[in-house]
């Protein structure tokens, strides 16, 4: 069937498909904007109320309250180092200003030098709850000005007294430049820009990535797949209608070809969005792991802080392969499982358990070595549950063999003491 279609017929069908998609978009976009109060009722007061003038706040008007190293460059604020404050390195810049949130559903932000390891948060305080910080994470959509829908956050209401921008994570040796923020009233273009920003927002893989691919951040205005499916369906109807007008024209290509081409084009658009995600993810993956040995890759991985002790533990407890227990701080079972995985095959940690008196005592009977894991950024000894046991000679009576960051290796009183400290 396909082989009978000439190039000319194909081009006509392609033209028809593109025209139908364009016509359909021309119908759907105004229709959607008209129906915003129905689809997104949270915008209704912003649409019906008075429109305030936008508020532009340049970067140099934000004062650093937490920062490793910051300076002003023209109208922009530059952060070249984050403050090393647990649990995560960060910098926060504050601007005090009084305005009503119910006039500004959109935030336009221009931040240069972002990377996927750096979270950017907008904080605000309200007059009705002074001292209480509310926040919104600003999606990572690449360089250049971006629009954020503030109504994704129900705490964006009342009178705002203070705005702050927080940078959390890792600057990766680059300075980040806050050119400025602009609070914008409702506009049709604002809605469309917010939708596009959400469709193109990037988040690196996390453990939920294997469960489903949602395509947009949580609370987004619109999912791309149903939106494009409606676009395609409308285009199909247009193609059918156009066909009704041209049915007496025997030279027109078959009905199904423009429909298939329209389908292919819309699929390609969705695939383009996905490939863009993959492309950004690849850049991130290459940054983290390319050109590295396995050891270096694991150090660069999300649990590198815990992994860096693995080689030492393997060396020090390597002759007691089956007599190791991992005791971890409540809520850190995943880290214990990662540690067990990394220790294999040389060491088989037979037991993983949250640290408590019972297991601390039984470790002396059943195991030669204990690996203690505390929360990121802390040391096991600093955690009350470990410290109590370690200071109670009747309970633990262990000797410390090695410690680094949130990981420590202790020999129980059953073990022959190993060398090193």
């Amino acid at each position, binding site marked *: 069937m396909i082989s009978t279609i000439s190039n000319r017929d*194909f081009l006509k069908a392609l033209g028809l498909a593109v025209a139908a998609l364009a016509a359909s978009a021309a119908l759907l976009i105004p229709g959607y904007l008209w129906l915003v109060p129905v689809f997104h009722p949270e915008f209704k007061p912003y649409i019906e109320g008075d429109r305030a003038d936008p508020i532009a706040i340049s970067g140099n008007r934000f004062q650093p309250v937490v920062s490793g190293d910051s300076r002003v460059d023209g109208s922009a604020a530059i952060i070249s180092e984050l403050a090393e404050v647990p649990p995560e390195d960060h910098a926060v810049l504050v601007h005090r200003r009084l305005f009503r949130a119910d006039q500004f559903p959109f935030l336009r932000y221009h931040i240069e030098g972002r990377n996927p390891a750096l979270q950017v948060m907008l904080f605000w305080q309200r007059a009705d709850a002074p001292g209480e910080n509310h926040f919104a994470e600003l999606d990572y959509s690449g360089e250049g000005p971006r629009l954020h829908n503030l109504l994704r956050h129900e705490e964006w209401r009342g009178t705002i007294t203070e705005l702050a921008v927080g940078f959390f994570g890792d600057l990766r040796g680059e300075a980040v430049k806050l050119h400025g923020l602009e609070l914008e009233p409702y506009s049709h273009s604002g809605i469309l820009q917010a939708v596009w920003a959400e469709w193109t927002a990037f988040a690196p893989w996390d453990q939920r990535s294997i469960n489903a691919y949602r395509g947009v951040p949580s609370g987004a205005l619109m999912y791309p797949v149903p939106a494009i499916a409606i676009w395609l*369906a409308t285009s199909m109807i247009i193609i059918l209608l156009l066909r009704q007008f041209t049915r007496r024209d025997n030279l027109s290509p078959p009905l199904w070809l423009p429909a298939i081409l329209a389908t292919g084009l819309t699929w390609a658009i969705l*695939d383009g969005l996905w490939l863009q995600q993959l492309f950004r993810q690849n850049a991130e993956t290459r940054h983290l792991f390319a050109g590295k040995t396995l050891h270096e*890759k694991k150090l660069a991985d999300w649990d590198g802080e815990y992994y860096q002790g693995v080689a030492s533990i393997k060396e020090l407890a390597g002759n007691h392969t089956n007599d190791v227990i991992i005791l971890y701080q409540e809520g850190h079972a995943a880290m214990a499982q990662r540690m067990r995985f990394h220790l294999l*095959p040389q060491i088989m940690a037979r037991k993983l358990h949250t640290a408590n008196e019972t297991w601390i005592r039984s470790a002396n009977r059943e195991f030669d070595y204990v690996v203690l894991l505390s929360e990121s950024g802390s040391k096991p000894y600093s955690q009350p549950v470990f410290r109590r046991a370690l200071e109670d000679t009747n309970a633990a009576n262990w000797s410390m063999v090695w410690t680094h960051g949130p990981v420590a290796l202790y020999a129980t009183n059953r073990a022959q003491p190993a060398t090193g400290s």
Partner: protein
Amino acid sequence: MTSTALALLLAASLPWIFGLMLARWLSGPGRSVFLYLGQGYILGMLAVVWLIKAWDAGGWTLHFRPMAVVLLVLTILVVVGALRRKISDKPAPPHPAELTGTSTAGWQQGIIPLLCLAMGAHLLFVVQELLLRPTFPWDAWRGWEPKVIQFFANRSLDAPMETIGNYGEVSTLAMLWMMLASEKSHEPFLHLPWLLAYLALAAIVYGYLRERSSSLVAALGAYLVTSLPYLNSHVALAGYADIWLTLAFTVGVLALSEFRCNHRYRQLVLALLMAAACLQAKRAGMGFAAVLLALVVVEIGMRAPRPVAVALVIASITMAGILGLTLLGYMNLQFPLPGGQKLLLSSSEFHVTGLVRFAFNPDWQPSPFFEALLQFGNWHLAAYLWLGAAAMVLALRKWPLLLRVENLGVMGGLTVIVLYFVMAAPETALDHTGLSRALLYVMPLAVAWLLTTTSNGGTRGSGVASWQIPAPGG
């Protein structure tokens, strides 16, 4: 480094070549090489799984070289067998594209490279993710990879450090095979079988469609499948068993579709082997193996003499009645299984002793199904197109198209998915930890049905003409 690369190459190619030759014997000579490649990879991995299990059961220490030699000998035997049968074996009938001529217009020659380029982009991205990133998925590092590393360290299927009860055998033993070949236990390249399963899935869809339509339609099918974002995630973040189940179920159903066309009984053997692969891939594979078995019965029934067909229909209706009465609480079922295990089914649970237990706690929540199928970016437009094509087929009253085997596979799979997520695990549907994975198993088939239906209206074997809307007056 070179020896590791060579060992990996051998570990990847040897099972594939063995499977390819086996696929040629099962599907018959003269078929699309892509079809053999798709079928061959999962057959080869099934051979590896069984070889490792047999080797361990025989009390031999697990080493790559002697097992590779055994596989090589088996491959040679299959090749020799194939060569000896070459003269006598009946070649497959030519595919429709050959019958209708192969001339392609310039626009087709332009689109195929574009599709190849797009497939290449997906492949490049997932290859980089797979080869650069250390083990990422939760289930892998928490559960089954520690088990495999113990197998590797002990050179036997013995894992004294308990990590996970049952996670299927294909993932674990495919990875063990790579570890034994490379003598490494943590390297990202050990996940190469997941990449090869992805390529095999593309190959089976391409080969299947190529036999029914033009190379453009076949390339389009391969592109649609390889571009599915959720499938890409399962390759890039290699370490879950779902891709094996997807591949096995797809190969099994397409083998049955082929059986309906050429009545070659070895296709049924292939489908049964794929049912076994589903069972060995992961626990969810039980439901999909049951769908494959049911389809085998249906296809045999359609070909069988009338008394046998009638007996099969009566047996099926009786079984459905018994199942219905059991699930409604009027009776309990109990079957002894090999190895002293028992299968128990009642209105409150499904239990295979020592293997799996699903407590039934029905809760119908349609929103997760709607989200996972129609809202999320998992499948691009595949779910919409499948629903749209089904609606169109109904509107045009081309009922037989709905009953094509690919679509029966999709509908059977969806039935299992709905039953499982409503009866046994509604919470994993609600939190979206399991639902999209299960939907992945049927998506390549949905794409295959969509394209066979739209490209030629299922003319081959179905007796149905194209479902193009006729022009007025003609």
